[in-house]
């Protein structure tokens, strides 16, 4: 209560001050907004509009761009490499999202609590999230060395599994790329779900326990509905992130072997910067933006609908 008492006059004062500013100089807020707006304009809106324009052109800055209508989009949609990249991206997005959310939930349930030991464990588990993705890629490339002396292969030998080719095998490379993605994403999900778990009134668990609800029932009827908002956020973020996956693939495999890990973004990169076809790359990027937007709306609609039913 002391908090409210102390803050009331301050709020009133602030309101008064704001009122006097507004009365005196109506352009004042705009001065403060100018810098962020300028940044947003230069680094977000202008590039976005420019990207849309480029996707309808054959881009050649020094010779003058040629308007080509929907040619670039047609080329993206009929290119078999883009089809494969799309398939890999979707497989990766679906598997990675489900696994990372499930693992995040398990971790959150395991590490909920205030004990100091748990805090240390949580910090350790959270480390991948604050590590640069480039570093994660390099470290995992070492772990996944396809030699007898590779780190993971050595461990596999202990349990009697022979040397695996991992990232060098076109049949398993996508799996390993996905695994690295899950390893990096699950702790982030854990953190958001932990925050969600803290928000659930503990008396609900006690009441349910008194009524004879077991562990699984409490999880299903109390924890999961209580985490609806968090899960919605995580699913949306994970879906967007998975579609835009780039750095880990680029570092781990560069899209190989035999194109088996090529995803939408690595394809865009090589079209844009290796083949110098910025128009085609922009068209593909715009399609990705549309897909991301549709998926986001869909994810939110699904979670909201599910929430209404519960």
């Amino acid at each position, binding site marked *: 209560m002391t908090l409210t008492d102390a803050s009331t006059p301050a709020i009133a004062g602030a309101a008064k001050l704001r009122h006097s500013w507004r009365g005196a100089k109506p352009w004042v807020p705009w001065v403060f907004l100018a810098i962020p707006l*300028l940044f947003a304009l230069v680094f977000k809106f202008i590039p976005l509009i420019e990207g849309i324009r480029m996707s309808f052109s054959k881009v050649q800055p020094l010779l003058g761009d040629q308007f080509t209508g929907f040619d670039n989009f047609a080329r993206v949609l009929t290119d078999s490499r883009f089809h494969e990249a799309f398939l890999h991206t979707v497989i990766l997005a679906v598997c990675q999202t489900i696994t990372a959310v499930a693992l995040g939930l398990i971790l959150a349930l395991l590490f909920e609590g205030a004990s100091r030991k748990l805090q240390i464990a949580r910090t350790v588990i959270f480390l991948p999230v604050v590590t640069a993705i480039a570093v994660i890629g390099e470290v995992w490339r070492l772990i996944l060395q*396809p030699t007898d002396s590779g780190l993971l292969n050595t461990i596999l030998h202990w349990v009697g599994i022979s040397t695996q080719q991992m990232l*060098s095998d*076109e049949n398993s490379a996508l799996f390993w790329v996905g695994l690295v993605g899950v390893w990096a994403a699950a702790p982030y999900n854990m953190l958001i779900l932990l925050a969600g778990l803290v928000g659930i009134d503990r008396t609900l668990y006690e009441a349910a326990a008194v009524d004879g609800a077991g562990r699984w029932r409490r999880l299903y009827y109390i924890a999961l509905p209580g985490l609806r908002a968090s899960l919605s956020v995580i699913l949306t973020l994970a879906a967007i992130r998975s579609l835009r996956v780039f750095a880990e693939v680029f570092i781990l495999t560069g899209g*190989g072997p*035999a*194109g088996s890990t090529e995803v939408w973004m690595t394809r865009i990169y090589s079209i844009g910067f*290796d*083949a*110098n076809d910025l128009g085609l790359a922009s068209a593909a990027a715009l399609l990705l933006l549309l897909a991301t937007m549709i998926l986001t709306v869909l994810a939110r609609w699904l979670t909201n609908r599910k929430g209404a039913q519960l």
Partner: protein
Amino acid sequence: MSSPTARARKLRWNLRLVSATAVSAALIIPLTACSTEATNAAKSDTPIEIWTRSGDTQAKTYQKILAAFTADTGIKVTYKPVADFDTQLVTRATQKNLPDLFINDAGSLGQYVALGYLKQIDRTTIKGNDQLSDANWQENLGTDGKIYGVPFSRQAAVMTIRKDWREKLNLPIPKTWDDVTAMATAFATKDPDGDGKANTYGMVVPGTAQSGYIARWGSPYLWQAGGDIVKQTGGKYTSVFGAPETKRAMEWIRTQFCTPGNVVPGSINLNTTDALGFSDGKAGMYLTGAYQLTVFDKAVGKENVEVVPMPHGPKNNTTFAEGENVYFASTSKNPSGQKALAEYLITEKAQKIGMDSPAAGGPGPFTSVVRLPVNTRVDAGAVYADPRWGIVADAYRNQPHAYPWNINFIPLRQIVADNMNAMMADCNSDIPALIAKTDTALKAEIARQGI
């Protein structure tokens, strides 16, 4: 009359307003300054801006050349070494403000011309043009028969071998493909480093399709089998990848990938930055650009690194010849500066500094940016005082093969790289089917480009 508190508040507010305006101004002024940079370049006292595709150590050698230029002519130079060169060049192109001069692969000429990056060059107006061979000038012709670059450095890919390993296992210098295969297997299985562990491999292969690496590495073998990617007849390009010679080369390369230890494990995903096996002392052979010799010498000892004449394939022992050109940006407002610096870069003096050999004096780091000099008055063997460079020069003279430089070859190289990577990724891959697929894709791209 306002009260003292109101006045204090107003003063505080004014201070805030002043600081906010100052911050916005500080942010906006440099932005506008950027856009006026181009106009200033027209003035003669503005430095010439030059970019090269180099890492830190190579940049030091370029700095030496440019310092000598400024000392000799009084013209100032702004130099920027760029690692991800083409990415950054695209960015500058979209600003319609390319660096005045840039030095990059000779093979990029066609693409740059197609994108409108380059200014045409009149060979006769370039001072010292007669000190460069006609053949080198010919390599700078665009499809329109005009010259678009000044040759700066040339080199050939060579077979580098761990001499101490080869001698320890009593192996002869490889002369044929079969010798190469046998040596790779021996390096992998006979413990050439003598540490009692099976931790050595035959050869280093940058095998990723990314940026076309596997195609660059594998092309000499394709040529040695008598095959090729495209052929020019009557001014038109056609794909010749479907010829039977291709199959032979691809099968030989796959034998290396599929014989355990012949290539460094994981090679299928490696680019040149990650393909460190040779300098790590893990692999004994590397078909690569001779400029890497200094790196290898430092890593495993100069006495242990030998360069051998390219082993013969079924047809010949062709090697990959490449080089760098000086390109004149079409956007430059400093044509006299462009010409002055380019003329200097091909002089005997600049070429020798660029070779940066211990014999040429100077404190090092001994990283050459002029690998084989284009200036015919400079004798590579004498400057380097290293017989290995004699073999490089021979390889460049005898059986050189370059990619077509006057067309946009990069998409074609990428098609080959993607499919080669697929052939090598699986030991049961259907090579004839993948060759046919490559051939079809190459034909489609050639038709699309209208070349």
